[in-house]
């Protein structure tokens, strides 16, 4: 007797569950067919970094090492140099600039401390998260890979796709 009622109750439970599950079919989908469809990220999303330039294309970074000091995983390497030439000829906006600026993405944990530390707004997080490579040494990105002017040409460059009303202090992209 109890076996029969067990079977009946279990069947009822399964039918109830299936009813709820099947009622989900016509509703809004939450899954995204990545990579065919792009993924949306929020404006504050912390992806691969961008090194910014001013209106004339001069690098904003003054090689103050603050980002390197703030970085919890010690993955930023900078070599500073002074360029006494006039503004029009030099690479940096200021006389002092970073001759070498490397970020080791094998170590970076995308915490945003470097962005928070930079007094010149020279470094921000971009929205690219597709940085997997076949060779570990390729994870070391140099200034050539990080400068915003270079990244804009790359197929990996992306902007935040979220259309929702969310702002960011660091957007500038």
């Amino acid at each position, binding site marked *: 007797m109890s076996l029969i009622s067990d079977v009946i109750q279990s069947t009822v*439970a399964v039918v109830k*569950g299936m009813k709820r599950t099947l009622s989900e079919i016509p509703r809004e989908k939450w899954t995204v067919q990545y990579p065919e469809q792009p993924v949306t990220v929020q404006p*504050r999303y912390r992806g691969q970094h961008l090194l910014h330039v001013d209106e004339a294309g001069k690098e904003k970074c003054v090689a103050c090492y603050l980002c390197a000091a*703030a970085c919890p995983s010690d993955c930023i390497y900078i070599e500073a140099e002074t360029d006494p030439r006039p503004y029009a000829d030099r690479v940096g906006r200021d006389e002092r600039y970073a001759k070498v600026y490397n970020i080791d993405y094998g170590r970076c944990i995308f*915490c945003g401390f470097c962005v928070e530390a930079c007094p010149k707004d020279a470094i921000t997080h971009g929205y690219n998260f597709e940085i997997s490579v076949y060779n570990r040494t390729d994870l070391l990105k140099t200034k050539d890979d990080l400068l915003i002017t270079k990244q804009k040409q790359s197929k990996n460059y992306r902007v935040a796709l979220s259309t929702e009303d*969310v702002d960011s202090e660091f957007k500038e992209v």
Partner: protein
Amino acid sequence: MATAVENLQTGVDVMDSALESQMTLSMGPQHPSTHGVLRLDLRLDGELVIKAIPDIGYLHTGMEKLFEYKKYQQGIVITDRMDYLNPLGNNLAYVMAAEKLLGLEIPERAQVIRVLMCELQRIASHMVWFGTSCLDMGAMTPFWFTFKEREKILNIIESASGGRMTPSYFRIGGLMMDLPAGFENRVKQFLEGFPDALNTFDTLITGNTIWQSRTQGIGVISKEDAIDWGLTGPSLRGSGVGLDLRRANPYTGYETYDFDVPVENDGDVWSRFLVRMRELRESHKIVKQALERLKPGPIKADAPKVVLPDRDDMRKHMDSLIHHFLIVAEGFNVPAGEVYHAIEASKGELGVYMKSNGGPKPERVHFRGPSFVNLSALPVMAEGEMIADVVAIIGSLDIVLGEIDR
């Protein structure tokens, strides 16, 4: 000889060595229902578990040592990676311990935001627990529903902090930055839809006879045993002890929120399940109240030598810029002393013991992880159960191996 050596390695007393019918089964470390890399050494007599010995350490990353080499502010990012389902709770425990040492006063708005985010995170964490523990026992459907709810919360957390699993949103002395515009609307939207989702879970699982007969009377731990083994959180409250640190030892203003502490008395998998399901409704209530209290105001403590100055201020004023430089480059000195601060994380009491020698880096940071202590009671619960029920018991403990091994 071989058995003796094996017994020595697994720590099993040689005296209770095997009858003919006994066998040892190594469950894990790659078993999907162990929620990470946990290995269980199961002594079996047929399908009955005679002894279950957890073997941990596969995920050891030396986090506690790492804290000694990081400035106080930098340590926050490490806490994210301990209990990766409840990173904001870990952030909170860590920053509050440091704030205790520094004697910082946190402004009202920051406190409310902390409560709001932590409760959202608790819901997200319980969602993963619910989905995976059902999945472990063969109920696949709830998993998709729970991950949909979790996705909404992760989007909210991402919009505020920029990170999904590793937000690092709290800072010693306040928050990383203020909430983005439109944040309140998104939380409201989530809150409106969430009771519906809870009803769905009740339809699918709680009221389901198959689920009930699978969990009731399984993995029982008595009230006394639960206290003796140091269980905390929902696992303790499932055994009839109504201890919740948000009530017993309030922090960030939890004493001013109106919520219940759910308690169940049977101490089995079903009780622990019910406690967590009811907690979801309580967290929903707290988020709602926190949202109403959200008033404009400062989000950082008034301590120019510890918290980074406002970004606009830093661009315009020389003294702010100097403070910014000093804090980032050298960190701040924390007065010598030691503190223990505990919060109610989604899995139980998460305590931080912090010792400072007066410098910019902590001398020692130790975590009392709820998963670690709760797992230690597994042998008591699993003894005498069927092997298939061990999976249910692990699921009901809600462990995260990232925190157990640290």
